[in-house]
């Protein structure tokens, strides 16, 4: 089947444009501690996407750092989408900052691809958004064309059908955005898409599996997956009527999660995946809004629900969605055969499906960071030795636990570790507060521990164990001494004294 002519509109560095940053100021947007976008000014100094913040700041110490805000980006991008929709309908959002349109219809209507591209570019530029427009066969090639267009003075790049393969062949394999695969390819000496296409598809499939075959198809200018022809009239969509209609978006997002589950199940039992998913919301006053989102069979149900949240937010902010929500529908658009994902053979066990479902359900209820998994980390105090990683994230602790940590509080570990140390008072036999001198001399043996309104009699004590940490870092620098005491109620306490202030760091109970 011939590839569809596709037009891609790309707004470079959208996360920064959405945040309202001046392109002349070096600034970066971070997501999971890596640079996900940067301004031209930052790029000029050597900052690149995927860098760690530390490296980026080495290139450019005066860097402004922003946190990623996908909802805000979608909201802001809604303006661009509205502009493009005035020229032609059926806009497909790939992600905030990037959208695609099937080019055949509009180019017939407006008399040629170039005139459509010019119209769209001018419409977007009229609101002072920087953009580039590329037209080629398929989304992948059109996206690359849009990137090439940015260097052109007119911001347009049209690749004819006959020239798409040649155009793609020039690009390095890294544009596939499959780091695990391209890493191997480069080491095998296959540096450009042209070289990859020269290899027979069967051999690539045999060596690299479904992922390799996808890459080969993309590189030869085909869709990532062969399209699946379906008998017409089969309903693969999932929808839900809200009775009574709902005002807030939270229940809608929760519904979207289960709708996405339902849609995935319907597709899954037919062995299909969808390229795009259409989010359609209807209100009680008869309004109906729809938007396509790129899916590619890669989004989890939670990811779909997240996009629904962004989309509802964006519509509400733009004032296009007023009144309460009566119906929400998810429709798969352009179904393809699902080639599946290769699960790891051993190790990295897949999470239990029930657990994963419950965890994501709670995340929808309470937010992404509400469900965590403990990971052991390096540190001396009990609170530093654990980091809580949100469910679904794979961030490794900054400090490894295996290294020797001289001066670490000896085992056993306390079973109660308050997030913030609780202030306390330690008194000696005369009722005077116990102090520790700079030379670690205790003024008198402690006999009473006062925490809040409770007073405990100390039966045994040990310390001080002085700690001097991070003396080179003014913010984290810390000088204190630790004590362990046991009290008459059978508990034991880990206490710290810092600048004459006593605090309960942990309780052994």
């Amino acid at each position, binding site marked *: 089947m011939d590839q569809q002519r596709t037009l891609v509109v790309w707004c470079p560095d959208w996360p920064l444009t959405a945040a309202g940053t001046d392109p002349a100021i070096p600034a970066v947007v971070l997501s999971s501690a890596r640079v996900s976008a940067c301004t031209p000014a930052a790029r000029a100094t050597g900052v690149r996407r995927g860098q760690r913040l530390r490296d980026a700041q080495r290139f450019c110490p005066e860097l402004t750092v922003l946190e990623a805000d996908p909802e805000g980006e979608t909201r802001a991008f809604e303006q661009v989408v509205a502009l493009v929709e005035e020229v032609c309908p059926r806009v497909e959002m790939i992600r905030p900052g990037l959208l695609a349109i099937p080019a055949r219809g509009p180019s017939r209507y407006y008399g040629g691809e170039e005139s459509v591209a010019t119209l769209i570019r001018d419409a977007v530029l009229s609101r002072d958004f920087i953009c580039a427009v590329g037209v080629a066969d398929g989304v992948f090639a059109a996206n690359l064309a849009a990137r090439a267009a940015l260097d052109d003075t007119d911001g347009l790049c049209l690749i004819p059908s006959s020239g798409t393969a040649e155009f793609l062949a020039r690009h390095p394999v890294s544009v596939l955005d499959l780091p695990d695969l391209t890493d191997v390819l480069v080491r095998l000496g296959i540096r450009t898409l042209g070289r990859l296409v020269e290899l027979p598809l069967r051999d690539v499939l045999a060596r690299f599996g479904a992922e390799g075959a996808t890459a080969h198809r993309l590189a030869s200018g085909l869709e990532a997956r062969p399209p699946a022809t379906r008998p017409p009239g089969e309903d693969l969509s999932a929808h839900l009527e809200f009775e009574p209609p709902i005002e807030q978006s939270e229940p809608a997002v929760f519904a979207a999660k289960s709708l996405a589950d339902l849609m995935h199940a319907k597709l899954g039992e037919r062995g299909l995946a969808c390229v795009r998913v259409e989010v359609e919301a209807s209100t009680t006053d008869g309004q109906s809004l729809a938007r396509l989102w790129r899916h590619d069979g890669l989004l989890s149900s939670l990811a779909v629900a997240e996009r629904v949240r962004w989309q509802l937010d964006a519509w509400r902010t733009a004032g296009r969605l007023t009144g309460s929500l009566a119906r929400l529908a998810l429709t798969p658009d352009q179904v393809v055969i699902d080639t599946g994902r290769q699960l790891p053979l051993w190790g990295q066990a897949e999470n239990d499906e*029930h657990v994963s479902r419950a965890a994501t359900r*709670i995340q929808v*209820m309470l937010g992404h960071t509400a469900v*965590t998994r*403990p990971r052991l980390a390096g540190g001396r105090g009990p609170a530093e030795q*654990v980091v809580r990683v949100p469910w679904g994230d794979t961030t490794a602790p900054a400090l490894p636990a295996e290294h020797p940590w001289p001066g670490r509080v000896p085992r*056993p570990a306390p079973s*109660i570790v308050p997030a913030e140390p609780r202030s306390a008072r330690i008194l000696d036999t005369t009722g005077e507060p116990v102090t520790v001198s700079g030379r670690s001399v205790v003024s008198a043996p402690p006999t009473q521990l006062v925490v809040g309104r409770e007073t405990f009699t100390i039966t045994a004590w*040990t310390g001080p164990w002085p700690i001097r940490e991070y003396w080179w870092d003014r913010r984290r620098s810390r000088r204190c001494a630790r004590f*362990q005491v046991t009290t008459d109620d059978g508990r034991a306490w880990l206490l710290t004294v810092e600048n004459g202030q006593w605090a309960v760091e942990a309780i052994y109970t």
Partner: protein
Amino acid sequence: MRPSRRQRAAEALAKVAGTEHLYTALEEFSLPVLPAFHGLLSGLPRGQVVSLDAPGALALALLAGASQEGSWSAVVGLPELGAVAAADLGCDLDRVLLVDRPADRWADVTAALLEAVDIVLLQPPARPQAGIVRRLTALARRSGCALITTGGWDGASVRLRVESSSWLGVQQGHGHLHSRRVKVVAEGRRTGGRPRSAWLWLPGPDGSVSSAELASVTNMSERQASTTTPVSSTHQVA
């Protein structure tokens, strides 16, 4: 002819006997606990509630047995729980979920987890509503998940509490904590109405949980003498 009262009573009894049989079958289906607890509990009963007096090492040790065998556990509403202590007592942290601050959604969160994991350790708010308590107890029974609560819980089949506890290793101004001997008392339906008690090392000098009955204490004190190490100098620079 109407059945006599005696007949009806016999029928009713037969029905009850049937269900009773069912319940015992269910009860035999329980999650493993660390061997040291065998004097108190043969296992964590699935679908039943075990209540503890307060959060602490006892709660973590109860999770450890099943966690070692590959069960998933979830901890709700206990942001202060020491994960390092849990790992030391034998919990597999890869299969632990934490929901630290469920706020007023604690019941929904617990309900979602009861259907997914094998053990839920829950710290309910100070006075949970009786209706919610009943609902969660029923949900636990239906899903076959063991629910451990800290603080009181109506309908708990076993109540465990630490009756006496003494930490060893700290002297007047020297030493460091190395072990704790506790007396744990279990009461409730599953213990046959009679409280059972056991002395445990929680944790012992080697970090594990083991029995601390008098017979084993003499052995332990010999082991202690050999494992106690002096505290090294802690004046260190990071």
